[in-house]
């Protein structure tokens, strides 16, 4: 890998531009390079790894490998391959524009450029599902993923923390805090109690999956050592005397804490794919949007693929496999190998993906937030940026008969802030869907326009004109 120092060091033309250096992006780069393609990886992080392998190359916890667990360190082999693969990499770079003709806008270090790669693989990964409960916007309330990032990169552990929500990541965080010797004060699960019985049919499939043994052991370890309060709906957080107070089970008890760490699953981070115009599909089981892709990650736009959790949540290992598949397909599309060669090279990966898919259905269904959890509480901030509450949203839906998210955005400003709807879009869709008795698929989503990340005036002004870019490209 060649680390590019600034945006000016980007070459004029690449065979493949990969957005994101998590498992899917790294694996795609390694595979595309092995086929002889020129590759650039554009990544928002400080170094390769994405969020799941964040800080892997220089973790302060390298001397305490037990703490983060084996799944984290498993990423080292892939990271090593990536660092040695010969791709260009530009970190701390935001890709804020992409269109169907594969013009790609990137900014870094206060400067911006448009490049035109021959093929694009989006490996933008996942983000945590918004969890609009009252008080989720208070200082001291963060996502479980945020707490994990602090642990991986700065060896910071929140003491006096209450964990709220459900899903593998929340339990993993509890286990990591236990291993660090700083157990959480309590873990309040929010999955409805009846859920396990409802998804019982998927249990045999799960037990045969690679996740079962690991997951159950972890669950058992946490349950033995942490106070777990099961099945609470209506969790509320308020600030009192400089501390956070967590009410649960309809006010049955209030727990004081310095930190509250929230999690109700992860969803694909799809703003770039959506703004580029990739056709999207609603994934009903997991309750999220994803770009429509085929087995190779091809979207509806020629030469633009999506690999990894950004195309639907399947986890880090599956993301790496999907990255390799997308890279081989890019190689085929660019005329370097035939379809038959691509298929032959990919047979083992396709089998691996099938194995990794086993058991996911159970996890998706077990931990899926209920409709009311997805729509959020009326008392909670639905849109954190513009400070629009769930109640305001519902009033606007009822009074204005807004047909879709875009009208609602115009009426309430919900979704107009710098996060570009990432933390309210799913909530808005659910509120509308439930009011109108339709599915979120029918309601649709915000129309996103570039830039998908805010661009400063200085960055815009720094952009070379089209003539200058063409001049560069035509230079021998």
């Amino acid at each position: 890998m060649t680390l590019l120092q600034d945006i000016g060091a980007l070459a004029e033309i690449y065979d493949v531009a990969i957005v994101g250096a998590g498992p899917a992006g790294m694996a795609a780069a390694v595979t595309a390079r092995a086929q002889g393609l020129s590759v650039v990886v554009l990544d928002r992080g400080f170094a390769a790894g994405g969020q799941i392998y964040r800080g892997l190359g220089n973790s302060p916890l390298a001397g305490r490998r037990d703490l983060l667990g084996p799944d984290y360190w498993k990423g080292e082999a892939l990271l090593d391959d990536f660092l040695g693969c010969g791709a260009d990499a530009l970190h701390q770079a935001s890709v804020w524009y992409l269109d169907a003709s594969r013009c790609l806008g990137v900014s870094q270090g206060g400067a911006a450029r448009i490049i035109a790669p021959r093929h694009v693989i989006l490996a933008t990964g996942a983000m945590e599902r918004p969890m609009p409960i009252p008080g989720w916007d208070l200082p001291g309330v963060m996502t479980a993923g945020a707490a994990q990032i602090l642990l991986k990169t700065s060896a910071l552990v929140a003491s006096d923390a209450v964990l709220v929500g459900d899903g593998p990541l929340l339990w993993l965080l509890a286990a990591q805090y236990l291993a660090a010797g700083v157990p959480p004060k309590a873990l309040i699960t929010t999955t409805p109690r009846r859920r396990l019985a409802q998804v019982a049919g998927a249990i045999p499939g799960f037990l045969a999956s690679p996740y079962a043994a690991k997951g159950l052991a972890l669950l058992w370890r946490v349950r033995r050592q942490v106070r777990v309060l099961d099945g609470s709906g209506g969790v509320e957080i308020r600030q009192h005397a400089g501390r956070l107070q967590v009410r649960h089970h309809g006010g049955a008890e209030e727990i004081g804490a310095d930190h509250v760490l929230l999690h109700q699953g992860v969803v694909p981070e799809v703003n770039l794919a959506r703004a580029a115009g990739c056709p999207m599909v609603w994934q009903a089981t997991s309750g999220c949007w994803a770009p429509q892709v085929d087995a190779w990650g091809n979207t509806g736009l020629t030469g633009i693929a999506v690999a990894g959790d950004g195309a639907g949540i399947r986890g880090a290992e599956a993301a790496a496999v999907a990255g390799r598949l997308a890279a081989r397909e890019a190689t085929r599309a660019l005329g370097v190998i035939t379809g038959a060669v691509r298929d032959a090279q990919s047979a083992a990966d396709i089998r691996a993906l099938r194995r990794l898919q086993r058991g996911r259905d159970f996890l998706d269904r077990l931990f899926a937030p209920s409709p009311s959890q997805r729509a959020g509480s009326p008392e909670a901030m639905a849109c954190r940026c513009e400070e629009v509450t769930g109640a305001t949203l519902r009033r606007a839906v009822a009074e204005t008969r807004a047909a879709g998210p875009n009208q609602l955005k115009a009426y309430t400003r919900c979704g107009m802030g710098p996060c570009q709807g990432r933390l309210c879009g799913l909530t808005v869709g659910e509120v509308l869907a439930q009011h109108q008795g339709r599915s979120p698929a029918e309601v649709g989503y915000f129309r996103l326009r570039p830039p998908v990340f805010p661009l400063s005036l200085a960055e815009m002004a720094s952009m070379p004109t089209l003539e200058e870019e063409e001049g560069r490209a035509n230079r021998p």
Partner: protein
Amino acid sequence: MFRRLSDTGEAMLPFTLDGLPAEGRAGDTVAAALLALGHLACRHSAVGGVERGPYCMMGLCFDCLVEIDGQGNRQGCLTLLRPGMAIRLQPGRRALGQ
């Protein structure tokens, strides 16, 4: 409070916070360094003027905005702490782009 697992041995990085001397560790983002010092809030929100602090730590929520070396509205979670940085919490209402 955030507790720093003690055995990690990173270099200390001096910076100033609202003009006063402060310290973080090599590898910290600005947001992480402030959290480690106990500053859970780093700004007041633009609309309601209420306290906000880092929420996602991965560049998506924009609740970690601070002033760094005279430049406002920088995402603390996407900025690595460097020695000598002058960091200010963003008090009061401040519209984005201001």
